[in-house]
């Protein structure tokens, strides 16, 4: 499957293999933890990671925008990895020249200390029935869409096989988003409660796994 449509709290959410979710009712494309500028930040500090084109990340986002044609794009934090560096430029240009609007829920890595054109910076975004934040929120009343965790799932099979896959984690109280950026790492999660669900992401397909 390339995408999976789900109705959550009467809203239509489409989970896409590009690690984005399209929310039809508000025409928003949601993603998390891009970590723009991470490579350059490392290199600036003398760590010689190959400076592979971070354009990859941007191109993937652009292709998703093309497919869903959203009115706005919402980043659930950690859009940027650290302080400003030149790697940010192509993103800033993209925001500036784009016809749609962009929202950033600020994350622990974002150190944005200047205004960015066409990028709204928020602490959180509360729009019924959802509550968008970077960190998972503990309050159970609100259905929370969040990032930060970089979730993945360790699939185990016969013959002691193991495969680790990034995933969306969907529970009764929240959806935790996978990290969108390359070179960001993941953290293994387990199914906690009955009814919880994983959407596992391989290179270009989605798989459902529920308890």
């Amino acid at each position, binding site marked *: 499957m390339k995408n999976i449509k789900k109705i959550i709290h009467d809203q239509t959410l489409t989970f896409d293999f590009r690690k984005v979710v399209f929310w039809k009712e508000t025409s928003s494309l949601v993603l998390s933890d891009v970590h723009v500028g991470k490579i*350059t*930040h*490392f*290199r*600036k*500090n*003398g*760590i*010689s*990671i*190959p*400076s*592979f*084109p971070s354009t990859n990340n941007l191109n993937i986002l652009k292709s998703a925008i093309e497919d869903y044609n959203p009115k706005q794009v919402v980043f659930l934090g950690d859009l940027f*990895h*650290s302080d400003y*560096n*030149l*790697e940010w*430029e192509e993103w800033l240009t993209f925001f500036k020249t784009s016809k749609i609007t962009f929202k950033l829920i600020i994350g622990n*890595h974002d150190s944005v200390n200047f205004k960015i054109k066409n990028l709204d910076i928020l602490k959180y975004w509360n729009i019924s029935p959802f509550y968008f934040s970077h960190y998972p929120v503990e309050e159970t009343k609100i259905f929370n869409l969040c990032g930060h965790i970089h979730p993945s799932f360790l*699939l*185990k*099979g*016969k*013959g*002691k*096989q*193991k*495969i680790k*896959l990034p995933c969306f984690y969907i529970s009764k109280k929240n959806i935790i988003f996978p990290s969108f950026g*390359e*070179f*960001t*790492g993941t953290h293994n999660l387990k199914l906690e409660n009955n009814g919880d669900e994983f959407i*596992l992401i*391989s*290179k270009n*397909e989605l*798989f459902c*796994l529920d308890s």
Partner: protein
Amino acid sequence: MSDYSNFKNWILNWMDSKDWKPQKFQSEAWKEVLKGQSGLINAPTGSGKTLSLLPAILWPTINHSKKTNHLICLWITPLRSLSQQIKISIEEFLTDNNLNLSVGVRNGDTSAKERNKQRNKLPNILVTTPESLQLIISSKDWKNKFSFINAVVVDEWHELIGSKRGVQVELCLAAIRHFNTSTSIWGISATIGNIEQAKDVLLGNFKSENNGVLIKSNIKKRIQVKSIAPNEIKQMPWRGHLGINLTTELIPILKKSKSTLIFTNTRSQCELWYQKLLEKMPELAGDMAMHHGSIDRNIRLWVENAVRNEKIKVVVCTSSLDLGVDFHPVESIVQIGGPKGVARFIQRAGRSGHRPKEVSKIYFLPTHAIELIEAAALNKAVKKDFVEQRNPYLLSFDVLIQFLVSLAVSDGFYPKQTLKFIKKTYAFSTINNDEWEWVLRNITVGSQSLQAYDEYKRVDILENGLFKVNSRKTAMRHRVQIGTIVSDALLQLKSINGRRLGKIEEWFVSKLSKGEVFLFGGQYYKIFQMKNMEVIVKKSKAKKGKIVSWMGGRMGFSSYMSELLRAELYDLNKSLLSNPENPLNYLTKKQLEFSAIPNSDEFLIESFKTKDGFHTIFYPFEGRFIHEALSHLIAYRISLLNPITFSLAYNDYGFELLSNEFLDIQDILDNNLWDDSHLFQDLNDSINTSEMARRKFRDIAVISGLVFTGMPNKRKGNRDLQSGSQLLFDVFRDYEPDNLLYKQSINETFEYQLEEGRLREALKRIKSQKLIWKQIPNPSPFSFPIITDRMRENLSSEKFEDRIKKMLEEYQ
């Protein structure tokens, strides 16, 4: 009188007063040292090797009776615990002879106060480790500090030569010799299979007409091996590596000996044994201690001194006590579990009877039944006088990068001049211009720069062509990172009152939660708090808890050891008839009952089914590293025939392919499974999809500074600069496959891990053997230790998405 006879008068006088006689190799060495010669001394620990060099090195200074303020002798030891010992024996020599010279130690344990003192003025004799030496070289003005050195001594060179620390020493020596051409270089080494080469590696190619002298002592150690087996071999477990059930067998030995060292193979095994012995012999409480690399240095030093002063009777330890610490009182040595190599075993045996001509006694305690075969093999090995080779590392670009940045951090370097002396080392004698240029590019522009906005910053090139680190942050981070011994991120373990207890690896802590109890240093602790890079714990009265474990390196049989083992094994069938008293007969009978024991012209494969799936076990008896390679190779070749997924496991005896479908060996064998053509290609294909190179890359990434492990004592380790080497490995593979560091991980895998040459030999042998394929209903005794191994890898030729689907079906 000549200078030499003056010297001889002086030293013999002193030795006479101690009632010692110079040995032949000592006199030979003195002569050569006084001539200004360089070389290697081949002598076992405890044979007076320090005395063979020190007096002659100091002689010119003593003779001119001038007080000197300079460093005149640099003494490099592989272990911190050794430094202290060497210092004491040097001090003894100096006081005895009324010499007004100072000795100092510089290593990771040296206090900040002492280090500051040394920054202003170094002692006349400095005892240090390779890492600390490189740190000195990365500080300003190091050249002047070293310009009056008479000699550099590298102690226990056999311990360094087969590791990247050896390369580090080679580079540091080259730099010292380039700026101080009159210094001589001396090594001291125990016997290894390639002692001549060990000398060449140490001395490099500095004086082409003269490559140094090799001085061999003719001291032979007599070693007595006794294996401890239960009266009833039936009591031996078929698997496991702890051997705990044999604690009772050890009691009489501990009671009989004045002092005993118990060697275990891993730190967690060490913890467990200490605990079990205490339970069995509570009277040992004040007389027993533990020593392993993660225990805090103060506690370690205390233990070492206590053994020396006969204050404690028993020490349970790991390889942390392998090296020269001079404990002459030790009476017995116990080795728990297979030592994996003859040289290591002999060296451990040498911890007892640590005086010339005393007999060394070692007890071998096998941890499972099959190790009894190993015991028999070891027994034969020590009787012959032959030990393994230790192969030097070549072209380790990670170490070179670390070294060059060190030079850049201190006074800076000029590439042309630097290349000249780097090429004189054994490790880099073949470095070509492209590689050199690449290394320089790596530290200045980050090797490749695809994008216009690149901001790479590490080493700057000044206008006069000097390569220099200007950023203080970069310099600081580099100094923290120096060292080539890599372990997982380490966390400081502290008791609630602030006492430092030692270090544990982050991955272990991450499995614990607050309040959980674990065993460390022989004491149960409860986790109180985890903060930053510290774990705060409280003592606990609990009687049970998790055992701390460390990833550390797993060792594999050397080729010599596996040869001995096979010889022993092929004998089993015969000895069943000829020697009814053989304690191994029970094992032989059991294995025969379930399956078969191969003769020298046979090769055994077993197939059986359990709830885990279909097991196929191959028994080459070649040691775990060769099996690691073979298992990948064979799994890969089989997977070419049919889409299939394997989980692989291996130990020193054989390897297992576990799959979810039955494997018809007869079918497979018709496909030239053991062919050694295309070996390189096939291995490369199977390794690319496996974890081996990835693991090698972990060390390389840390050494070359790609992975930053964080500043000690800094509240928040530079989290935003930390990344896993795993992640990096993928990035290199996908975006920069011609990166020399990435390539190095693959080369190292082939040369040091897969031991390609050995692998070809093994394939040839197996091909010539007759195959015995046993399809059996239950696992055989031989297979137990393998199938229960939990360290596993995968190899698959199925489509990735198909595998996920299959696994999901099984899951639901």
